[in-house]
């Protein structure tokens, strides 16, 4: 009986951790980033907080407000 409860507890905790990770990943997608694609096929992502993103994000925000 105790073993069954322990298994249920482990499964429940595992599910909670998985759901939390999935939620964090999904919510992270809405954050700020810059994807830059080059002619040679390479691509680089500048994440929020990087120097490149700090340079590019204000320009993009200005562009967005001009377009809306």
């Amino acid at each position, binding site marked *: 009986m105790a073993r069954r409860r322990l298994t249920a507890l482990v499964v429940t905790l595992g599910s909670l951790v998985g759901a939390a990770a999935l939620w964090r990943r999904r919510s992270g997608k809405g954050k700020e980033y810059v994807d*830059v*694609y*080059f*002619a040679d096929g390479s691509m680089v992502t500048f994440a929020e907080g990087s120097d490149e993103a700090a340079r590019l994000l204000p320009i993009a925000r*200005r*562009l967005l407000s*001009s*377009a809306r």
Partner: protein
Amino acid sequence: MLGLPAVDAAQALADLVEISAQIEAAVLAAADGTVLASTLADEERAGAVARDAVELLQAAAGGAGGPVQLQVAVPEGSVFVVRDEERLVAAVTGRDPTAGLVLYDLKTCLRLAGENVRPAKKAASRARKKKDDGEVADGAA
């Protein structure tokens, strides 16, 4: 873009906005930022979008040369810029767009706009050659 008809810049942009429901506004411009066509009614705003798109491409240039396309995502929405040798197209979308589809549609728009320029150049070249041939024939007669 084989098999697609030649269209002018405004038509290419109109087609783009019709095809891609995710695109809220778009501006087609020359590489220097001169506006060729826009879905925005206000010319000043279209010019500002084109200038910012040029600035974005310049600011994003890195060791691998100039970027050919980029996406900037912020909580308010996304900005996309795609360029070729002569033109660029900038578009804005809402939050979490399907980036691959938007970029594909923007590249198609650029190609369609380019199709209009190339036949015109060929026609001018043909006309010039015809004129030269005519002058040679006149000289011979």
